[in-house]
């Protein structure tokens, strides 16, 4: 039986000139599991929000609609409100940001939130909450504070909140893009098991196709501003469209990006930074998260910091980049990194910001944390100006970076308005502008599409060949394979050195 019907459907967000989607014709039957693919900007999330009934085309709504989008013959926005009034959920929506989906402070209350909104009688609420918490295998009680959950656990909690409503259609918008690979695999397996039980219809948007391929039976490819360009059984569509999708950033199995060949300069690198028996602690605590770390950061070599969540990768990266204090052992910058300034302290954490930015570049996991200017070109000029370069040299470096990182057309844009991949390129460019000898990156490929990934890896390989040292904290096995000369596997409060990669 057909459940979702779109005919010539289109949506334009208020204040935008371009249509997010246009001319969509789609039929999804009850119990079907559909993966929506397309380059970023193809309106996949918009389609999910529309099916969830969250887009309001009314006069004071949030956009303009054309064509029809029906759930069992009823316009989607009315289907949602009618469903809530009748105490049943037509759709459940799982979004990508685990932090932003938690509504309440205790796990049980958070799951109960949707049931209360649907006016489920109080005596039925708690059994359904307990059932949903059990089903997602969270393993914590109702009173457990949501603030203490990891990203993966939060995503499961959000799923429990959706499942407790027993929706007929499960909608998921990149549910694993902000999780580490292990947590992502676990969530995908969990959703698979739950869908087999509930037989709910499922509409999924996800860039990492391999993780979900076993679970879906149909793939629909959307085009930015256009409609459906391919629709059919997963294997068939991926065979026909795989190469084209991969070229536009989708992670398609069999079309995965590969790292570039590294040039072997034959030059033995210099030690830039030496850690001996180093101990680091999380901000605001003295309890060590890692201790006994011995590490030489050498020019022309890349060191990957790997390990499970909570093993202290990011904390160590912050210490190595001179942003956080170490709580034991020694961290000493060596003469090649210190340069001519003889008054400079040996520990990077004691340097003034302008001495730091000249020597060590940092790339944060969320690029938006790093933006301080209102245009991309000003953003790139910040570092060079801080170290006192003449304006002609500042302009030369800025122009060079804009060119190399394909940012020329965005030079006047506000960094906050860029897409995720563009923001990543800008954040790396800002760290390179002062030509530091050491670059420290925290999960640089996190949440990136395949195209940005390949560009980033090629750029970093080029820097290594030119003699820069790289340290990167990462979960991304492909990144480690492509770049790392040394791999440091971390376990909380005990570090172990692994073999060269």
């Amino acid at each position, binding site marked *: 039986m057909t459940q979702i019907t779109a005919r010539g459907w289109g949506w334009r967000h208020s204040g935008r000139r371009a249509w997010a989607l246009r001319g969509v014709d789609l039929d999804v039957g009850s119990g079907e599991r559909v993966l929506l693919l397309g380059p970023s900007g193809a309106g996949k999330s918009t389609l999910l929000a529309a099916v969830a009934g969250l887009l309001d085309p009314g006069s004071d709504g949030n956009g303009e609609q054309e064509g029809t989008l029906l759930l069992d013959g009823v316009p989607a926005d009315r289907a*949602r409100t009618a469903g809530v009034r009748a105490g049943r*959920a037509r759709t459940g929506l799982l979004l990508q940001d685990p932090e932003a989906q938690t509504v309440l402070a205790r796990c049980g209350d958070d799951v109960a*939130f949707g049931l209360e909104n649907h006016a489920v009688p109080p005596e039925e609420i708690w059994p359904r909450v307990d059932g949903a918490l059990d089903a997602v295998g969270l393993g914590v009680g109702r009173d457990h504070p949501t603030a203490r959950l990891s990203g993966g656990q939060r995503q499961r909690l959000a799923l429990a909140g959706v499942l407790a409503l027993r929706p007929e259609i499960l909608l998921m918008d990149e549910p694993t893009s902000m999780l580490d690979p292990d947590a992502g695999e676990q969530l995908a397996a969990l959703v698979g098991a739950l869908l087999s039980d509930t037989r709910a219809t499922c509409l999924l948007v996800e860039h990492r196709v391999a993780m979900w391929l076993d679970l879906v039976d149909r793939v629909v490819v959307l085009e930015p501003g256009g409609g459906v360009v391919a629709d059919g059984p997963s294997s068939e569509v991926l065979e026909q469209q795989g190469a084209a999708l991969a070229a536009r950033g989708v992670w398609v199995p069999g079309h995965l990006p590969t790292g570039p060949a590294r040039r072997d300069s034959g030059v033995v690198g210099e030690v830039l930074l030496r850690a001996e028996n180093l101990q680091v602690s999380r901000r605001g605590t003295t309890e060590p998260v890692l201790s006994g770390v011995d590490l030489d950061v050498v020019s022309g070599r890349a060191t990957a910091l790997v390990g499970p969540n909570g093993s202290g990768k990011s904390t160590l990266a912050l210490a190595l980049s001179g942003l956080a204090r170490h709580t034991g052992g020694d961290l000493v910058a060596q003469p090649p990194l210190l340069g001519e300034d003889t008054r400079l302290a040996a520990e990077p954490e004691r340097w003034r910001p302008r001495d730091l930015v000249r020597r060590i570049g*940092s790339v944060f996991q969320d690029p938006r*944390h790093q933006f*301080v200017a209102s245009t991309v070109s000003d953003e790139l000029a910040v570092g060079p100006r801080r170290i006192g370069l003449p304006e002609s040299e500042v302009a030369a470096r800025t122009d060079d970076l804009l060119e190399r990182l394909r940012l020329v057309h965005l030079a006047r844009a506000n960094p906050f308005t860029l897409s995720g991949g563009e923001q990543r390129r800008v954040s790396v460019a800002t760290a390179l502008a002062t030509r530091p000898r050491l670059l420290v990156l925290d999960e640089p490929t996190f949440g990136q599409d395949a195209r940005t990934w390949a560009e980033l890896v090629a750029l970093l390989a080029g820097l290594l060949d030119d003699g820069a040292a790289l340290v990167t904290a990462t979960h991304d096995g492909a990144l480690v394979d492509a770049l790392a000369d040394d791999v440091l596997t971390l376990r909380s409060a005990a570090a172990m050195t692994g073999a060269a990669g």
Partner: protein
Amino acid sequence: MTAVDLLAGAADTDRSAPLARANPVAKLAVSLAVSVALLLTVDVVTAGVALLLELACLPWCGLPARSLLRRSWIVLVAAVPAGVVTAWLGVDSGASLLALGPVTVTEGSVTAGAAITLRVLAIGLPGVVLLATTDPTDLADALAQLLHLPHRFVLAALAATRLVGVLAEEWQMLSLARRARGLGDDGWTGRLRTACGQVFALLVLSIRRATTLATAMEARGFGVTSQRTWARRSEFAAFDALVVLGGVGLAALATAAGLAAGTWDLLLS
């Protein structure tokens, strides 16, 4: 201490203490009664008696002295300078205690200063206890179910309090990132500029988070009808009425003491 510690009663409070267990609305009423009584007057006796009585009730609040101090520093920070400034600049009367050029400190201005300090403390203390011993979720339940405040407003505010903790983390990352960009070492003007930019960045990030949260809440049926059920029932028991009575009694006693001592003086008269 972060705003989170102030808001969500953390592990250092004993939630089984009688006054901690009282319905949040009852605790709120006590806070209001004391505030109204003390806002009417600025005098040492009323404020001092109120503060003494409040301190006498502390053992039943489940808030050990250490946690109380940790949470009330912000009240102290407000109370002490307010008193000192009043003693310094307030209207002079009585014997002069200290004269430094145009600034004179007199018996009258010292008394006024002490009254201001005690008053801020006496108004602040019930508020600190309320926040420290009350889970925001329980407060929201009580406000919506017992006082019938609009649940859309109450629950939206509640969800927003949870984002405060996230914002504190974001702020730290923004600070580190500014150091990494080479900013923050050129005097206070430079620092001020950096801080303004940082506030803007925090705003942008939090609006994005809040939009996602709003979408997630709406997708789970929030805001469609007023026909909502409550999984947790907030009840106003006989004991809660007693607590309110106690609070009103405390305010009345303090006022009576002020009247008896002749120091009570209606502020707006």
